[in-house]
């Protein structure tokens, strides 16, 4: 099968507000950076443009209409994926593997500061007849999930707080991340309870930002500076039915990971993956996801965390970028931002937060409450995987 590589990345950085820019100008900035990084002329060389977007976050129905211009895609093959950024990347991989395009641009953005009431949009995602009618804030779904996870995996709130402390400290080393902070466990535990067992500091903040990733076939990528290979992709959805889903264990992440591992030819993830950027939009999610990804056994993530295994200088650095807790939550852009970080790390360009000898990376995204939608991607400095 055709190998696919990332040949360029562009990220605006994250920030809580960006009143001076339109979402189009924000996207343009990310696109310009990515095309410069990949040394690609978008108007001549890119064969497919893909955007990840959600109409209700963008505030425009049929958003793909507004996608082309600011990413160089006017009068070119363009499509949007109403899903998370990693799903759009997976679609780009498919376009190249299928021989439709040699170079693909994948875009996602968050201009959530344009949304007056994000809580209303999140509420709108609940099942309209059963769950929404009960009239809870959508974050309640995360509180319910956290409680079941703590119960099943014998994890404590203190251990979840450790995730917050680690990621916000990592963010201090990342100029793209606005929520860097030196916190202690008690800061997190004493923060305002929101959806118990969740408290305020367990939850990432919604932020603006745009990210563009340029993919290429092996033929093109071999002539580019520092290509990073996409060796595996996987994605999966569990049932949306809240009575039927597994509240303690994200089965969809496990299955997405198995698909990606099979694609990449990985049998022992803990030994074969050097760094991981996983969803941590709520503190407990990082631990729950690491277990579902088989990077550690179920119930063991908290132990590894407290021993420092997931620190930047640990055995398996997790969210060296600061994760969503340190970066902020860019909605459907989170997966691309995590991919951006993985590429920076694998290229050895991650500055103060550089992980030593990082050769392979795992990126995982989750689409947020109330979804059970996840995706996984395996990256490496060398191509691998089955035929």
């Amino acid at each position, binding site marked *: 099968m055709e190998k696919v590589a990332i040949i360029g990345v562009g990220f605006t950085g994250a920030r809580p507000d960006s009143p001076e*820019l*339109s979402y189009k100008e924000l996207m343009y900035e990310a696109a310009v950076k990515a095309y410069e990084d990949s040394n690609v002329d978008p*108007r001549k060389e890119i064969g497919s443009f893909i955007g990840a977007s959600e109409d209700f976050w963008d505030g425009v129905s049929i958003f793909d209409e507004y996608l*082309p211009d*600011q990413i*160089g895609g006017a009068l070119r093959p363009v499509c949007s994926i109403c899903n998370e950024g990693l799903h759009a990347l997976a679609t780009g991989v498919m376009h190249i593997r299928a021989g439709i395009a040699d170079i693909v641009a994948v875009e996602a953005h968050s201009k959530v500061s*344009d949304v007056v*009431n994000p809580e*209303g949009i999140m509420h709108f995602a609940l099942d309209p007849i059963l769950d929404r009618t009960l009239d809870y804030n959508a974050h309640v779904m995360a509180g319910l999930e956290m409680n079941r996870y703590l119960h099943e995996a014998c994890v404590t709130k203190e251990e979840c707080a450790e995730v917050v402390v680690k990621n916000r400290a990592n963010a201090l080393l990342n100029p793209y991340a606005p929520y860097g902070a030196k916190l202690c466990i008690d800061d997190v535990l004493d923060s305002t309870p929101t959806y118990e067992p969740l408290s305020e500091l367990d939850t990432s903040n919604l932020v603006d930002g745009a990210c563009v990733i340029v993919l290429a076939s092996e033929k093109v990528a071999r002539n580019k500076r520092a290509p990073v290979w996409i060796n595996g992709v996987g994605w999966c959805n569990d049932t949306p039915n809240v009575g039927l889903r597994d509240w303690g264990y994200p089965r969809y992440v496990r299955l997405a990971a198995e698909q990606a591992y099979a694609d990449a030819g990985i049998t022992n993830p803990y030994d074969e993956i050097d760094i991981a950027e996983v969803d941590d939009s709520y503190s407990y999610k990082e631990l729950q996801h690491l277990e579902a990804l088989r990077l550690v056994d179920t119930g063991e993530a908290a132990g590894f965390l407290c021993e420092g295994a997931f620190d930047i200088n640990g055995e398996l650095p997790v969210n060296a970028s600061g994760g969503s807790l340190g970066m902020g939550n860019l909605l459907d852009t989170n997966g691309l931002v995590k991919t951006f970080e993985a590429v920076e790390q694998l290229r050895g360009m991650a500055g103060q937060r550089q992980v030593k000898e990082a050769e392979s990376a795992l990126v995982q995204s989750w689409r947020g409450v109330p979804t059970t939608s996840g995706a996984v991607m395996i990256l490496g400095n060398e191509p691998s995987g089955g035929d």
Partner: protein
Amino acid sequence: MSKEYPGNPLNSKDFKKALKTKYVPTAEYAWSAGHAINRFLTGLKEGRILGIKCRSCERILVPPRAFCEECFISVDEWVELKDTGTVNTFAISYLDTMANRIKKPLLPAVIEIDGAGGNGFLHMLGEVDPKKIKIGMKVKAVWKPAKDRKGDITDIKYFKPARGGV
């Protein structure tokens, strides 16, 4: 009918037995206009139509934007345009936003602004008999009084036929 065919016909009461859940979403937005449109809207408030010129393809973009979508470069050469133009296309709308029939039709039209090489924007026509509107017709902006303008596309009330006609 019931004699010819077996079974009982449905009536409107039966349909009410199928339960429905109503919900009005709370979806509110406040879009940042951005560098280019901000300046355009500020111009409208001042009674001016501003465009921007791409140094590569030399097109005048109106409404202006921060980048040229054809050349994919940033653009920043501002130009003031006239408030006159030509009807590129038009329609006569006998239905309103929610498709209710209205007596006096709306007159949406795409106006090519003079000096912008065929570029322009969607607006509306006024002071004109719908039957007399023609593609290629010369038009001129009718502005709201300065005190009522607020930096909005509706600071131009409509475009009316220009003196001198077609």
